[in-house]
């Protein structure tokens, strides 16, 4: 009834081409952002910050990055964990070498470094395709982690190879280290996520995004109509790695605060992000967010219900969570193979016509 296009007339091209052409959508998104920026910081506590909000934000950013590469450009990658490690170590080296550097710049530069590394490891994609490429990107995953574990320069020659985030400030407020207030770290991450989600949305609507999708749908055909595969594939690798690098830097600096490469950036992280985008929806910005939320929050939710609510033994619950997550993944794929975002899209289609579907 409220969710409709009729009566919402556009009188300019820019009005017609805006991201959310339906007024209701626009207002919901604006209200949601306002809520996230203005209200949530007053309600947040340590538990919500460290177990719910910041992880979801950080993983959303990683999922966004991978979705650009896999969902929009069609290049399956399992090197996400390794690229996150690049971002994390870049931010660590930058901030310990130049303690005065503004944190925004540190994080952005880490993304830049990761983008360069991403281009190098993206080169095989020009020749290798599909699952073969996925497994080939595993080479970068294992090699990068090994490198960060082996070369002492990366971890400033500390005894065990662990890196710890030093305390850093933005506008005089700590955003890393143990004394950072929950609202500050949350807002710091939220800013990055909102800004880069907007950029991603616009990138995918523009010329670059369209050339990515052309390559995804059929690269030979795209090449014939004049989309250069080299430039397009590598730009997708670069942009995707940039996002993943930023998420890695935030993951280490803001969320965890300490990391060792083998455990924090292992192969299971690469798989985790891939699960997120497939469950959320390939080629969907919104899907990256719900995919990340699903994979991060479901275990926490089940755990709290079953251990906190029902008081079952923790090991039984852990096994059951695995079964439930697995079962849910299969269930959703059977119901809607194109991810949660597609479910959402179908719901919206129905809402447009509601309550008079005929």
């Amino acid at each position: 009834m409220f969710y409709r296009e009729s009566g919402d007339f556009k009188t300019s091209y820019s009005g017609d081409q805006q991201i959310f052409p339906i007024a209701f959508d626009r207002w919901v998104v604006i209200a949601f952002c306002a809520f996230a920026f203005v209200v949530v910081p007053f309600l947040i506590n340590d538990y919500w910050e460290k177990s719910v909000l910041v992880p979801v934000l950080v993983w959303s950013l990683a999922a966004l990055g991978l979705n650009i590469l896999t969902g929009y450009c069609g290049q399956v990658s399992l090197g996400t964990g390794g690229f996150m490690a690049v971002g994390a170590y870049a931010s660590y080296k930058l901030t310990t070498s130049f303690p005065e550097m503004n944190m925004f710049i540190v994080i952005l530069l880490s993304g830049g470094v990761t983008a360069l590394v991403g281009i190098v490891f993206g080169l095989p994609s020009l020749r290798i395709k599909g699952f073969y490429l996925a497994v080939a990107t595993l080479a970068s995953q294992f090699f990068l982690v090994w490198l960060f574990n082996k070369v002492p320069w990366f971890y400033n020659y500390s005894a065990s190879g662990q890196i710890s985030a030093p305390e850093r400030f933005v506008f005089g407020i700590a955003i890393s280290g143990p004394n950072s207030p929950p609202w500050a770290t949350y807002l710091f991450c939220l800013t990055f996520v909102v800004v880069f989600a907007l950029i991603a949305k616009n990138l995918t609507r523009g010329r670059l995004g369209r050339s990515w999708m052309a390559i995804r749908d059929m690269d030979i055909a795209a090449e014939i109509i004049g989309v250069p595969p080299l430039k397009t594939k590598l730009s997708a690798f670069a942009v995707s790695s940039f996002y993943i690098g930023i998420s890695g830097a935030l993951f280490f600096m803001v969320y965890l605060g300490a990391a060792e490469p083998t455990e924090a950036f292992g192969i299971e992280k690469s798989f985790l992000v891939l699960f997120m985008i497939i469950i959320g929806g390939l080629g969907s910005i919104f899907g990256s967010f719900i995919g990340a939320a699903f994979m991060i929050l479901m275990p926490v939710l089940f755990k709290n219900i079953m251990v906190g609510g029902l008081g079952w033994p923790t090991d039984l619950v852990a096994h059951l969570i695995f079964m439930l997550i697995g079962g849910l993944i299969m269930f959703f794929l059977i119901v809607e193979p194109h991810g949660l975002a597609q479910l959402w899209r179908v719901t919206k289609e129905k809402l447009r016509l509601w309550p008079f579907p005929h």
Partner: protein
Amino acid sequence: MKHTKLAAAAVAMAMTLGANTASADLVFPSLDYRTGPYAPNGIPFADGYSDYFTLLNERDGGIGGVPARVLPCETGYNTEKGVECYESTKGEGALVYQPLSTGITYQLIPKATADGIPVHSMGYGRTSAANGKVFSHIFNYPGTYWDAASIIVKHIADQEGGDLKDKTIALVYHNSAYGKEPIRTLEELAKKHGYNLTLLAVDHPGQEQKSQWLQIRRERPDYVLMWGWGVMNQVAIQEAANIRYPMDHFIGVWWSASENDVLPAGDAANGYKAVAFHGVGSGFGVYDDLKKHVVDTGKAAGDGSNLGTVLYNRGMYAAMLASEAARTAQEIHGTADITPAMMRDGMEALNLTEARMAELGLANFGPEVSVDCANHGGPGLGAIQQWDAAAGTWSLITEFTGADRDVVDALIAEDSAAFAAENNITPRDCGA
């Protein structure tokens, strides 16, 4: 839309469940792992930890009259889950954390210090946390990895008649922060004693170690040391047996020394050694009580089959040290209902004498432990235990001996100073 809202409400409700109100119990969170690649190691430890507190509640009505409550939280040895566990349990008045993972310990060092909650990383975690001047809330008594490395080298020297010159020692290690811990110490000791050190890294999970053991077979080092965890231990011991490496020259750290590690190799594991900081077997008085009050009444955390195994003993020992520290805190502050800050004071003033251990039914279970403001690493004593495959038991073959304090203390001072500088910590004045 309606469903989304309902779901959101359910999420919100379920998540607030995680933060219940604190009660008058003494809360001991147990960040254990009964799933994942390290579950076989995590299960007996968690069982021991929780069974000992159950025993205290059943037999003595708690600690100083206040019942203890163990708050299990499954981490799966995963750092992020560990963080979630920490945040969800700290609001319940958690007195001390026992993370049982190097990664989670490193996470909690700054966080728990800022929150004023002590962490007891018993024989693992960051070794230089033994310096209480820098790490006010982190404890790793009764011993550290560097102590372990030094004690093993000392044992080797005893075997070799005191002379290690031109001997070769190989270290097979888990290629992670944990496995890399002893390297510095072993290098320093190599300078001092003149032996050659060969380093062999094994990547997680460590199922395939053929290259490493072929290299050992070729170079025939006089001794092989191991810093392993999980499946790596079983495979390493199996491979060592396969190449017929003399097992009594193969010495593991205390985390590579459980029944789980040697049993798959069968008789071939006979003679394998490891360093230990507490006693082995179930021949202690406390086991009669555990049987009577916990296992036979069906209150045990596991199925009771783990009693007396190395890791069960270690979990129980950790619980005993925690409860004794709580008791000390109760005495210092004159109140039975202690806070994490009081618990910290209790841990720092812990003085566990042989008489007290005998009283607890743990006579000769481990060395006396005393902790003070400057030394959070405790006595740093260790003994060597050896596996008897025919009998299926471990036994201690040496007395508890100390580490080479000159070497270890210098390294601790150096590493903790680096940490203090990096994090702008002014070392506390401990009055001495």
